[in-house]
């Protein structure tokens, strides 16, 4: 590599602006978030008065918070499980070319490419307590009497299921696309060798294909976890955290407390609980990247 004297300052000159930008607008707020969590800041006050672990204590004691943490974990894990299953099945169906595949791909990608808020509003209309099309179909099939159908967003368990459903709906396209890339990366001779060795469909899938796709699978899962765990938009628009905090998640609670409730400090404290999960995910991603580099 030619390390010429001219290059020595050129490199830093070229990447320092980006790094400075990120340090200023990500690094500094990150530090501020920690500071706020230990202060009594509110919207409208200035300056930072540290109050120790006061915020954390009150947050941890609040039942809303405990519900929010539980929901965040439950929503994320159940959505991911469903998404992995569905995206694998869908990727297998999309693998080989067929007539109309481009159009099918376009439709399948819509949930992911449309803005989060807009897709969610679409679902809000579909799940509306009075005018839901699902309700209409179930009534028409005589599963429910008219006006006796459940309120999809109004009953706690159904509301939770609806939130998970919308997250899955959004993530399946993204995951499928990554799975497809993973599948096409498997050299075609390997499943052929497995077929000759005597493996049937299921054995080839579970003992050959999926293990070989593990790096890409991991990337899809880790990104999926981040997208669901740190999202507040779906909850905010679909249920606003209700009914009775049953669909509140860490990010949506942080917003409700910090911005809507003007209590910046408590909001910051709540949002800091995202950090352990983010650190864990970052660590796992680095492990995956390192392991595949060795290959």
């Amino acid at each position, binding site marked *: 590599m030619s390390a010429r004297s001219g290059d020595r300052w050129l490199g830093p000159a070229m990447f320092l602006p980006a790094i400075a930008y990120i340090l200023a607008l990500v690094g500094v707020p990150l530090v501020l978030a920690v500071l706020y969590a230990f202060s009594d800041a509110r919207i409208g006050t200035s300056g930072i008065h540290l109050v120790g672990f006061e915020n954390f204590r009150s947050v941890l004691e609040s039942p809303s918070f405990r519900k929010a943490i539980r929901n965040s974990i439950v929503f994320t894990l159940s959505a991911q499980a469903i998404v992995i299953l569905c995206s694998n099945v869908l990727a297998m169906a999309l693998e080989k070319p067929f007539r109309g595949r481009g159009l099918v791909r376009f439709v399948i990608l819509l949930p992911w490419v449309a803005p989060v808020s807009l897709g969610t509003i679409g679902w809000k209309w579909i799940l509306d307590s009075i005018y839901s099309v699902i309700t209409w179909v179930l009534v028409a099939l005589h599963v429910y009497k008219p006006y006796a159908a459940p309120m999809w967003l109004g009953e706690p368990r159904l509301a939770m299921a609806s939130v998970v459903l919308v997250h899955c709906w959004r993530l399946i396209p993204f995951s499928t696309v990554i799975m497809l890339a993973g599948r096409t990366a498997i*050299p075609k*001779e*390997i499943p*052929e*060798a*497995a*077929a*000759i*060795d*005597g*493996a*049937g469909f299921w*054995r080839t899938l579970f*003992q*050959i294909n999926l*293990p*070989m796709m*593990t790096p890409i699978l991991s990337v899809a899962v880790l990104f999926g976890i981040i997208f669901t765990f740190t999202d507040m938009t779906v909850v905010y628009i679909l249920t606003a955290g209700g009914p009775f905090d049953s669909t509140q998640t860490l990010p949506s609670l942080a917003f409700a407390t910090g911005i809507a409730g003007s209590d910046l400090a408590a909001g910051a404290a709540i949002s800091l609980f995202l950090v352990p999960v983010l650190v864990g995910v970052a660590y796992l991603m680095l492990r995956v990247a390192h392991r595949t580099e060795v*290959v």
Partner: protein
Amino acid sequence: MAVVETRSLTKVFKEGTLGAVNDVSLATGEGEFLVFLGPSGSGKTTLLRMIAGLETPTSGAILIGGRDVTNLSPRERRIAMVFQSYALYPHLSVYNNIAFPLKAQKVPRDQHRKKVEWAAGLLGIGALLDRKPRELSGGERQRVALARAIVREPAVFLLDEPLSNLDAKLRTSARAELEQFQKRVGTTTIYVTHDQVEAMAMGDRVVVMDKGRVRQTGTPAEVYDEPADTFVATFLGSPPMNLVSGGGTITGFRPEHFLPALALADPGSVPMRFTFSHEEYLGAERILYGTLADGAFAGSKAVSRIASTHAGRFAKDSTYDFAVEKGRLKLFDAATGIRKA
């Protein structure tokens, strides 16, 4: 050990075009090492893949051990295949790679270790059982692929250019090992290659293919000394057979039979005077390039191959007395390329 037979096997990939394999009928002998030889695009790999069950024939039949397997999946055919890239399962250890066919065929677990160690021992890779494929050299990977193939004791081995991924030096020793291995286990083997040296060295018989058709089937000596047409004649042998045309007939003679007249003992030799152009010194032999001087073939390019023990020096543009033994001249029909005499 079983006989593989194809009957009028044809594979057409795109309707209206010439098939990749056209009406191929052949049969192996029991325990035979049969080589499919041909240039790329000749259909040899497609033929092999049809026998393996990885491609479905457009028409025709395939029989293994007398059983019609044309509609059977690969796992039902009791064959084993070694791919050009070896296709080892990268996430499994060598032991598990070799054991995989046993698992897939539901061989009882307690027999696995014994069989794997037997196969590994046969190929000298017993020490590598705990490694992963990415930690192995090319030659070692090839042996793992062979061990995986042999562990099921299949009826037929199918090998798709297994030596082409090895360095040239390794290739010769690997070739010898492969030959000995096959003789030891005695399994009927079909071997695909484009390298005629491999085909001649290893094959009991060679099937020479071009554009999806079989041009000639025979022992190495038969296809080399008595080629059926000009394609076979020029594909085998390096440098290829000299072909000169005149009067509706193509006359062929191999460079090693085209020698300075004095070197030939036989009085029945056909004289051909040779105008020398340039030569290549290859160590053990010398390749002489030039043109024929007289008669019906005057001006045609010719190549002679003489041992380096022949010390004679040749001057550019000088003409010399060369000759070919009468029995070594092959005559081909100019229109079809098929051998007449």
